[in-house]
């Protein structure tokens, strides 16, 4: 694992010591090289994990997320070039260093083998994200957004710390690999219920669960593009990954503790999808669609069947790429008209046809069109929730319909129809932007040819 971590650490001196016109090129290139290294970890032996050292390991659940994280760093750097072009050099270097630091913490989080180590890094990812949102966001609401983000997450995760230390005491070790063999079933009692809650609430807030999702629209909307990308693509998946890891300890209590959260998620995904239909703010629409997709992941993780875990993993990777691509597209709009309102930039298909192609593909993957991996994820989750309880298919069906509705609404509002008069003199698409969209889309489409890699450890 050091062969990924040490190069990522060395990216920081690279930014500070490069020539001023080479900082973006250097960091993007080396970031892409690091992501190539992480692809090696996708080759997993069957039914087992790849142990790198005492502290790091990677299995079929964390390897795709690791590849997603390392793939996203060069994409974030490419997306940030335009809005940082007018800033002084030191601030550009600071921004890039924050992104690299965040990347480093995320890599270590996904490959941590001990749960307290995972917790420390889970919290550590908050600090660079907070700095990126509060310092480089664009509106005054970003201060509030940063506060909501930090305090919601911390309020949920401090009980997690206490619960992890208690389990450490109780079980002797928190090394994830050993715990799989030492777990005993958790009997039903009030203190175990609180233990379950303490363990899960941190990840529920991070996912986010419907009732605790207030931080997400604020943070996503106020963050600059790289912040939105990394938040939507990776930081939400931290919650899903953590939930999958920690539910191994919490059986069989999950069977009935899951009910309130299942209800919140099932109802919440319909609610947030419906909110999307009435949004005027483009980034806010994409943020609420993230909540809706993640609610599916919560449902899948709480059901705890093999198919649902496969669906959750596939959905996490697919949603990461899709959501990040949608934020990039929204940002390309924002950079031209400096407003997030959707109706101000209509009819872009006649002005920027290639970008319209990317909009089409992104919207199609967002609504889970076959044969993309989005569909595989959603389909597995729908099927396993049907087997858990027959009635959920009604809610899932309504959700898929409304998802299709708002994705097409977003597509049609921004691309089709007559263009508004004042956008006639927008700049044409940069090659950088087209490259960005291609690099988002290629993994999505190629993975639909071989989805085995992202289906997780239960394949």
């Amino acid at each position, binding site marked *: 694992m050091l062969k990924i971590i040490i190069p990522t650490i060395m990216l920081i001196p690279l930014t500070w010591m490069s020539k001023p016109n080479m900082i973006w090129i250097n960091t993007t290139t080396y970031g892409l090289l690091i992501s190539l290294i992480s692809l090696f970890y996708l080759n997993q032996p069957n039914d087992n994990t790849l142990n790198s050292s005492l502290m790091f390991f990677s299995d079929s659940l964390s390897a795709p997320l690791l590849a997603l994280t390392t793939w996203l760093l060069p994409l974030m750097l490419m997306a940030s070039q335009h809005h940082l072009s007018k800033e002084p050099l*030191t601030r550009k270097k600071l921004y890039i260093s924050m992104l690299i630091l965040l990347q480093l913490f995320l890599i*270590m989080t996904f490959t941590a083998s001990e749960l307290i180590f995972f*917790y*420390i*890094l889970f*919290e*550590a990812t*908050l*600090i660079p994200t907070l*700095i990126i949102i*509060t*310092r480089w966001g664009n509106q005054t609401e970003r*201060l509030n957004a*940063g*506060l909501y983000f*930090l*305090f919601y997450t*911390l*309020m949920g995760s*401090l*009980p997690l*710390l*206490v619960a992890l*230390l*208690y389990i*450490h*005491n109780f079980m002797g070790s928190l090394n994830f690999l050993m715990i799989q063999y030492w777990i005993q079933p958790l009997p039903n009692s009030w*203190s175990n219920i609180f233990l379950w809650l*303490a363990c899960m609430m941190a990840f529920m807030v991070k996912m986010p669960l419907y009732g605790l999702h207030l931080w997400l629209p604020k943070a996503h909307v106020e963050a600059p593009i790289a912040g939105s990308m990394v938040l939507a693509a990776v930081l939400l998946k931290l919650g899903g990954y953590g939930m999958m890891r920690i539910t191994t300890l919490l059986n069989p209590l999950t069977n009935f503790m899951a009910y309130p959260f299942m209800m919140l998620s099932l109802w919440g995904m319909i609610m947030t999808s419906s909110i999307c239909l009435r949004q005027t703010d483009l980034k806010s629409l994409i943020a609420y669609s993230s909540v809706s997709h993640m609610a599916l992941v919560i449902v899948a993780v709480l059901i705890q069947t093999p198919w649902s875990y496969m669906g959750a993993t596939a959905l996490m990777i697919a949603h990461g790429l899709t959501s990040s691509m949608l934020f990039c597209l929204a940002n390309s709009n924002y950079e031209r008209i400096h407003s997030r309102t959707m109706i101000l930039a209509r009819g872009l298909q006649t002005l920027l046809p290639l970008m319209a192609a990317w909009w089409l593909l992104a919207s199609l993957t967002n609504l889970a069109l076959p044969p993309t991996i989005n569909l595989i994820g959603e389909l597995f989750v729908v099927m396993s929730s049907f087997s858990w309880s027959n009635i959920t298919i009604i809610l899932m069906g309504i959700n898929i319909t409304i998802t299709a509705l708002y994705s097409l609404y977003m597509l049609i509002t921004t691309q089709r129809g007559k263009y508004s008069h004042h956008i006639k003199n927008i700049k044409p698409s940069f090659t950088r932007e087209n490259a960005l969209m291609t690099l988002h889309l290629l993994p999505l489409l190629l993975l639909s040819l071989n989805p085995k890699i992202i289906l997780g450890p239960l394949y």
Partner: protein
Amino acid sequence: MKPPILIIIMATIMTGTMIVMLSSHWLLIWIGFEMNMLAIIPILMKKYNPRAMEASTKYFLTQATASMLLMMGVTINLLYSGQWVISKISNPIASIMMTTALTMKLGLSPFHFWVPEVTQGITLMSGMILLTWQKIAPMSILYQISPSINTNLLMLMALTSVLVGGWGGLNQTQLRKIMAYSSIAHMGWMAAIITYNPTMMVLNLTLYILMTLSTFMLFMLNSSTTTLSLSHMWNKFPLITSMILILMLSLGGLPPLSGFIPKWMIIQELTKNNMIIIPTLMAITALLNLYFYLRLTYSTALTMFPSTNNMKMKWQFEYTKKATLLPPLIITSTMLL
């Protein structure tokens, strides 16, 4: 203050604390406390104005009362055990008296009322000495009598201190009062764990002293005592603003900075002793502390306050050598990774 007098007074302060830490005879300990208190009064009154006089008087009254209570506890202990050596105190009344006296000296709740007012009335340098060096002596005595302290009393004091420290600091804009409430909260964390594992208290004290020293030094660099004057720092010392950012986050106890280490260790020790609700409550209340540190960082490092000063790099020459030692110490002393 003339240098010879300053040297003598500083030496007396240090000697006083040293005597407290090194003696095993209760009378000498009391003498050390008195030396310390009498010598620090002129330091508190460096700037000769009524506010400083009021602050010194309040400090003197509370500390003298605490010393007398300590003496009473010592005498009761002498009555029941017949010896002056500091060791396990068998009599509960004596133990409670001593604990109360020492927590009064530290500024734990419910004896915390003097801390914000005294800290506010004195200069930044005196405030720094007050909040760091003066905590060492009482803590060392608490460490030595830790087997015989009444756990319930101290845990109650600790919990209320953390709550008071969190809530009291919320409405403050004066930096010295913010640091005073932060001191109350941190003392609460330290007091919570003395009876279970005193080593963690030493760890927390060390890290707290490091962080507070750095914070005060950064404030003195700018001679700022209010949030408003701190927010002009982006213009003069842009590098120091990022230092303040990291320092404040470390004081708030965010991983992976070193302010997280004592919190983690204390929660670990408390859960090993089967207390779950108390560390959870303390951890969540520490979030209140984090809120007002974060507010300081918002106004300093993360936003640019309007200011009329357009020149950058104005005062490069003051104190730059002394301050840069400590912040790297703070950040890199995370032994976690």
